[in-house]
């Protein structure tokens, strides 16, 4: 019954092209709701009963019907992605309103068609186990997100970023494909995920895992495969950035987790490897984020950071399994997997808010924003909520997952060997630094964008977005607070997923006891704040309250918009500490000697991602240049063409005679 509805919904998707532009979003939302409802039902069922849901779709693929299989890992990811995609779809209606007149029917239809199919392909990614079908839907997901990213195609950078995105996704895809094929060729088992288990039982796991890790890691955005994120996220429309950061990159995590379920050897090496990559991703991600001036680009770098945190959880978990320290394993995996959910919530919230800001001010440049809390109070508070959550501060959800990882780390310290101790210590330092830097970064972003005085006319004229765009943020916000205050339920849910890796799940039950204590503490905190606030209100009513200009140390002549601290100066003292990885290019015209009265000048800074520059840009540019130089064979001269044939035949004869081939 559900299955048939599912397929009917698939069949209806193309109708979106025949809708009027105004109704496309509602129609798309309807279909997505249907899809989410059905798959959500399956997933909840799986999570509650701990069973595995298996069905055959009526769609044939190469002669045999497609099989879908939902286990707890798939179920968890399906729930996460359903939520984010639905909020994204709701948000899109308001966000795309200004484009209705600009874009033609096909462009709009293509966008919504891609959105629906992005949803479908992601659902299928989570549900399919057959290798070829998985590869197909995996790349379909990339293609549809590519089509979504290039929506604002008037801008040259958007299209460029889109191509970059598609290309990198394709490279990742190639790695995954190579991984599958290698496993298949060397074992002769079925060409599917289950076939991998045969390979991993018989061979060293690490090399093949590395292939998969690179493939999925490009999607997830681990450093050094992160270069597409800071380009694609600002380019995409905001609901897509939210979805992309919220769930698309999580599909990479899903892939890694899925592959890990089949690996039972070499786990220590893999764990340490993931851990190191993740700590680096987390640290560098947030370090790059601080110096960005583009709001969405900054958030994109934060996604890298959070992927790092998720990876830390997974890495810790793996080390726990390998070293047989169940508490480490359970808490690590639980923290990592819960952070997947958490990050999808607060990151989509942040992107939606950033989108609202962009929609009303038409700029993403931090130095042109300011004072928006008075113009767009709802957006501002929701952004603040997301900011607090992403910094991992209690009583919000980000804290819960980081707390799980921390407590795993400290428990692990007690029971493990010297080597693991140092790894754990390094991770802990990394994690605390990430936390601190995140606070640094988000205090900067929030205060520059929303507080103080507007820095440009466009932010002065901004006004609040309408309810349709607030609603998805509120939905995400509710979950953020819910997880923060009542984590027990969610940790239990994650526990079902962790069961795939660690059979002894009693520890997760244990941890729920202090999860409830966290709830108490958070409630005490909130209660105290409320009480204080009311005391304060009462006091304020009694006393005389005045308003005046900000204290300028006795000088009140300065223009408040100019006198403020800027994003650049906020990051300046930090930037001095990290020169080797963050290079800031300064562009300005120096003062000439004969200039007695200097002309007005501009000064521009641009941060350079040194990893991207040195590891990718330079070598690729070299290869391309070299290849372009080699393009001399199409000379236009007929005689040359005949020569090719002659030389070819000669060469082949020569090679054959001397038995080289």
């Amino acid at each position, binding site marked *: 019954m559900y299955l048939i509805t599912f397929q009917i919904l698939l069949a209806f998707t193309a109708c979106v092209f025949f809708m009027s532009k105004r109704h496309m979003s509602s129609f798309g939302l309807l279909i997505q709701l249907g899809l989410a409802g059905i798959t959500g039902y399956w997933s909840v069922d799986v999570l509650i009963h701990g069973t595995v849901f298996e069905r055959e779709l009526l*769609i*044939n*693929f*190469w*002669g045999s019907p497609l099989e879908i299989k939902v286990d707890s890992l798939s179920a968890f990811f399906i729930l996460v992605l359903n939520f984010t995609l639905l909020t994204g779809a709701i948000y899109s209606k308001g966000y795309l309103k200004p484009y209705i007149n600009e874009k*033609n*029917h*096909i*462009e709009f239809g*293509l966008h919504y068609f891609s959105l629906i199919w992005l949803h479908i392909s992601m659902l299928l990614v989570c549900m399919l186990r057959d290798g*070829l079908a998985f*590869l*197909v*839907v*995996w*790349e*379909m997901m*990339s*293609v549809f997100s590519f*089509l979504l990213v*290039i929506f604002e*195609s*008037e801008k*040259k950078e958007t*299209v460029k970023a*889109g*191509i970059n995105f*598609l*290309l990198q996704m*394709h*490279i990742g895809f*190639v790695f995954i*494909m*190579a991984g599958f*094929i*290698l496993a*298949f*060729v060397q074992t002769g088992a079925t060409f599917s995920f289950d076939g991998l288990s045969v390979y991993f039982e018989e061979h060293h796991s690490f090399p093949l895992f590395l292939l998969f890790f690179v493939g999925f890691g490009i999607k997830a955005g681990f450093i050094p495969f992160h270069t597409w994120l800071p380009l694609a996220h600002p380019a995409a429309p905001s609901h897509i950035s939210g979805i992309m950061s919220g769930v698309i990159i999580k599909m990479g995590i899903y892939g890694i987790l899925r592959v890990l379920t089949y690996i039972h050897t070499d786990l220590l090496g893999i764990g340490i490897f993931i851990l190191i990559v993740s700590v680096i991703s987390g640290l560098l991600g947030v370090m790059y984020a601080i110096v960005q001036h583009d709001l969405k680009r900054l958030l994109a770098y934060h996604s890298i950071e959070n992927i790092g945190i998720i990876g830390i959880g997974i890495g810790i978990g793996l080390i726990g399994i390998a070293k047989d320290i169940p508490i480490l394993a359970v808490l690590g995996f639980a923290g990592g997997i819960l952070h997947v959910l958490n990050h999808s919530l607060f990151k989509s919230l942040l992107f939606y808010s950033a989108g609202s800001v962009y929609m009303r001010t038409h700029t993403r440049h931090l130095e042109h924003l300011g004072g928006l809390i008075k113009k767009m109070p709802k957006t501002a508070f929701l952004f603040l909520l997301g900011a607090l959550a992403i910094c991992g501060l209690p009583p919000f959800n980000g804290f819960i997952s980081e707390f799980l990882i921390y407590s795993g780390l400290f428990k692990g310290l007690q029971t493990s060997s010297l080597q693991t101790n140092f790894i754990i210590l390094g991770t802990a330092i990394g994690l605390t630094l990430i936390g601190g830097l995140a606070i640094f970064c988000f205090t900067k972003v929030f205060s520059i964008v929303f507080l103080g005085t507007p820095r440009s006319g466009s932010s002065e004229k901004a006004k609040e977005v309408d309810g349709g765009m607030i609603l998805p943020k509120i939905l995400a916000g509710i979950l953020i607070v819910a997880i923060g205050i009542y984590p027990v339920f969610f940790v239990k849910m994650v526990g079902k997923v962790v069961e795939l890796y660690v059979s002894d799940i009693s520890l997760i039950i244990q941890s729920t006891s202090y999860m409830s204590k966290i709830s108490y503490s958070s409630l005490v905190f909130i209660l105290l704040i409320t009480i204080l606030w009311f005391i304060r209100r009462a006091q304020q009513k009694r006393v005389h309250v005045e308003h005046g200009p900000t204290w300028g140390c006795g000088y009140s002549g300065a223009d408040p918009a100019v006198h403020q601290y800027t994003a650049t100066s906020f990051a300046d003292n930090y930037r001095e500490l990290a020169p080797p990885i963050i290079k800031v290019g300064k562009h300005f015209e120096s003062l000439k000697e004969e200039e007695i009265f200097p002309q007005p000048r501009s000064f521009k800074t641009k941060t350079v991602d040194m990893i991207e520059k040195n590891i990718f840009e330079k070598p690729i540019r070299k290869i*391309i240049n070299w*290849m*372009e130089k*080699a*393009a001399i*064979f*199409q000379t236009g001269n*007929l005689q040359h*063409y*005949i020569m*090719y*044939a002659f*030389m*070819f*035949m000669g060469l*082949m*004869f020569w090679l*054959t005679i001397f038995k080289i*081939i």
Partner: protein
Amino acid sequence: MIVAYLLLAVVTGGAVYCFRNRAATLFFILLFLVGQTVLTVYAFCHLNERDSTYFTFDSLGVILSFVLALLSFASFYHSYIYLERHSDTKRNKSFYYAALIMLSASLNGAYFADHLGTLWSFIEATTLCVAVLIYHDRTNHALEATWKYVFISSIGLAIALVAILCISIASSKEGVSDLNLSSIVAHAQGMDTTWIKIAFILSLAGFSAKMGLFPLHAICVDAHTVAPAPISAFISTTLMNVGFLGIYRMYCIVAQTDALPWANRVLMIVGIISMTLSAVQLLKIKHFKRMFAFSSMEHMGIVALALSAGGIGYYAAILHIVLHSFAKAGLFYQIGQVYSVYRSHLIKESGNYMKLNPLGALVIILTFISVTAIPPSGLFISEFMMFKSLFAGEHYFVAIVALFLLTIILYVIGKCLMHLLYFKGEGIATLKPVKLNNLETLSQFVLLGLIFYLGANPPVFFTDLITGATAILK
């Protein structure tokens, strides 16, 4: 049957040339198309039966003839639109149609030819027919390209004829006096591999002119550049397929002997060089049709690699040939529309196609996905099979190089097509949207739909045909 068909072609071709009014032209063309379809269906119903002494309805022939039948409809339709749009003289039009009919007929003749000599002469006939079509626009470039195409094709085919003679030397020693493919293949096992090897290299070099493969790839590219769009579609699909057929027939002979691993290595070299050259040239590309011509060359390289990989690669090669035909045809028809918008094929003079012709832009996106073999396009399935067999044969290095080149090609094609779709520069802004016939675009959608359909869930008769065509290699 085939003789009847060829006679029909000659009659209708002659009639189209003689009676130049619209109704008569339409009638004879339709008559021919129906006859051609009947032939394909007839061939499918009489699979593996001999016909008219020199022909056999073998599986590969039927597949390619099926592709041809389908694409002829599309090509005649698009040619009609093309000629109307460019308001050519009646004489040129009738000449064009007659040549197209003869080309289709000789292609079908080549597809079903069972005798090496017949195969050769039909392939040579295609060269002569297509010369008229390439030269249709009568510009200096057209002249140059036609000259090069005809001349180098002739040289290539002369080399191929030498190859056939070498086969005949080898086969006569085994007591096979006729040059019937089936009997040669049946007796090939004992043949002298020296002659077979020489024949293979020569035929590879010779037929490469037709298939658009290294070493004689250059002329196909030039021909694409100047030919009318429907003809480019035809050249890069059915005509390339005939080159593939020639090489495949030779390969079938080699495959029976001990020289098979050697032949695979040769094919692999050819495939990789083709892909490399196309990738390298693509980086400097300025012209849409040349871009797709090089892309065709790349695909032929993939086909060669797939053949060389063996095993499931054989299947992949034939599937790839078929799907590539649909993708390229759709693409070139669409490029015809693009040309009618910009009056230019240069990449830098294009842009904002999404606004100017939204439906066409959708086709462009779909073809982009198909041509670069991104799933869910069927071409991905065939490339995937190729890689599977490459890995199975432990040709890791070749596979990695191929993957690298494919990525570069994806990048270049993506970049150029996105420029076409979205670039907004000076000169582009002044262009007005062009009203185009939706039916024209629809036919392209049908072709593209076929790619996705055949890639995801091919009907049983289709897979059976491909398996039948590769059965000889097992």
